[in-house]
């Protein structure tokens, strides 16, 4: 684990495990993961498909559905353990304190409801006293924050482009000024130009709100440009957690090094260094040891060679 909980930490996840029950055996999608999120910080969660990063994000939101369940661990937010909250308690925490910006903006909006209804639903779910005028004003304000025209409000999701939909999702995510924003691969389905716009928007609103962000993704280049600290996941476990510059300058774990080296650079055109596909080249998923602090704030899972 990356240190004990400190009072100023926004979020402290301790020993979190998410297990999926399948007919043959239990799959440990997230296997005893611990980390801390500091105020105003941008934490990246990197790893390949299936590493458990999205599951971790969903677990924090308590959105894991059967046959999966949170097997162990605590999720401390402002002194409360989200893992132990009641259904209604968690419902109130969602969006108001921890917001999710989902992957696949293609389908995250309800096709039969207008954009303004999405905002109305979100606000009314947490604030019974909100009246129509206030909701309308707030909707316009939020759309402006993500640089969308006001008249987007009366449109249906299918009338928006991918980038616009993603920005609507961001606007919905910040509508109640949460302390933590979890962005789960928000730009996967978008082209590079739109990606940049969306990430800029995300950064701007984060700063305006003073919120902390957990950015989940597998695009190391994207993560490098956005996050302050990076946690690298493999087979449900953390293998390295450190400030982003430190990772790029001085990655300690072979997996992290493999990820970085696989990024093509301008200087070495035509040379691609992929990672080996053989399972034997990597640590045994069931036997990854706990992280150890090799350097100040630089945690690595001990590895052979």
């Amino acid at each position: 684990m990356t240190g004990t909980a400190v009072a100023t930490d926004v979020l402290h996840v301790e020993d979190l495990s998410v297990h999926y029950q399948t007919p043959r055996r239990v799959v440990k999608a997230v296997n005893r993961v611990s980390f801390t999120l500091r105020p105003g910080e941008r934490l990246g969660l990197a790893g390949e498909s299936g590493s458990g990063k999205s599951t971790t994000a969903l677990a924090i939101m308590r959105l894991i559905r059967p046959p999966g369940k949170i097997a162990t661990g605590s999720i401390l937010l402002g002194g409360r353990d989200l893992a132990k909250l009641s259904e209604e308690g968690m419902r109130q925490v969602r969006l108001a304190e921890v917001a999710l910006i989902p992957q696949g903006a293609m389908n995250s909006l309800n096709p039969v409801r207008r954009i303004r209804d999405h905002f109305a639903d979100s606000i009314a779910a947490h604030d019974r006293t909100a009246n129509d005028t206030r909701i309308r004003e707030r909707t316009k304000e939020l759309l402006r924050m993500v640089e969308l025209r006001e008249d987007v409000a009366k449109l249906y999701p299918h009338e928006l482009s991918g980038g616009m939909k993603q920005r609507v999702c961001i606007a919905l995510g910040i509508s109640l000024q949460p302390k933590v924003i979890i962005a789960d691969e928000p730009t996967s389905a978008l082209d590079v130009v739109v990606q940049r716009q969306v990430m800029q928007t995300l950064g701007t609103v984060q700063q305006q709100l003073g919120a902390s962000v957990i950015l989940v993704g597998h695009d190391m280049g994207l993560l490098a440009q956005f996050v302050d600290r990076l946690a690298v996941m493999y087979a449900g476990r953390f293998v390295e957690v450190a400030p982003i510059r430190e990772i790029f300058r001085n990655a300690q774990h072979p997996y992290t090094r493999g990820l970085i080296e696989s990024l093509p650079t301008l200087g070495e055109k035509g040379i691609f260094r992929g990672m080996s596909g053989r399972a034997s080249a990597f640590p045994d998923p069931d036997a990854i040891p706990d992280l150890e602090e090799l350097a100040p704030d630089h945690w690595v899972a001990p590895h052979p060679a």
Partner: protein
Amino acid sequence: MGTLVGSPQQEIAPREASVNRERLMNFGSYIRRNPALGFGLFIIILLLLIGIIGPLFVDTERSAPASVLPDQPPSREFPLGTDDQGRDLFAVVVVGLPLTMRVGFIAGIVGLGIGTILGFTAGYLGGMTDTIIRTLADVLLTVPGLVVLITFASTVKGTIGIGTMALIVASLAWMWPTRTIRSQVLSLRERGYVQLAKISGMSTPEIIFYELVPNLLPYLAGSFVGAVGSAVLASIGLEALGLGPQNEPTMGMTIYWAISFNALIRGLWWWWLTPIALLVLLFVGLMFISLGLDELANPRTRRTNS
């Protein structure tokens, strides 16, 4: 089963006799997890057995009119009673139930066959062929089947045999299978493994047999059950109106005669209750099978165990 998943020894181990046993055990454990399917199959097999084992218990000749004393309530001699025209209803059931089921199965198979061929063609070839087939199927679906069948059947009134009946009914049983198969083929066609097969040079028939059909099996089975169900429904509908084979004691004709001779008002409850009860069992059994197959095809409805 003992061996680790992914271990190299698994490929080399002898699998001859153990394969079938393993399949049987897998089937058994699947049935336990899918009770609907098991229950449905159980009912249908039970009904089939009536026709197969029944002749051992009763003389099938007594299903013809004027064989026994008429209007007898159920007794030890006539377990299901007799009807107004002197038929032993137990014999009628033993003879007639298989007939009714046969019409259903024949029409179901023919309907499924036509439907599968058309559905495949439409889904795989696309374009104008697809449009024509799809429009035809959709249009015929909105037409009230029984009403059209009435037109057919009343024109050839009196001369229908079981086989003709099955064919008439089958003529309107192919549309749902066509729709289902077509939409499945459309979604499967673009899947990765199909395109991979194309690239690696598999011929079209090979692709159809080795890649598409195995994935279509639950839908084919589901469509078959649906076709059988609607075929039986249509056939007993025609029979109950008096448009069925006049000389065969099928379940539908039995109902027709019961209504014609006012069995309801005369209190001859065993006459009309017997075919109804058996038909209800048949439909319920088919419904459970189709619910079970639904679950097989759409695992999201699957409830996890423990």
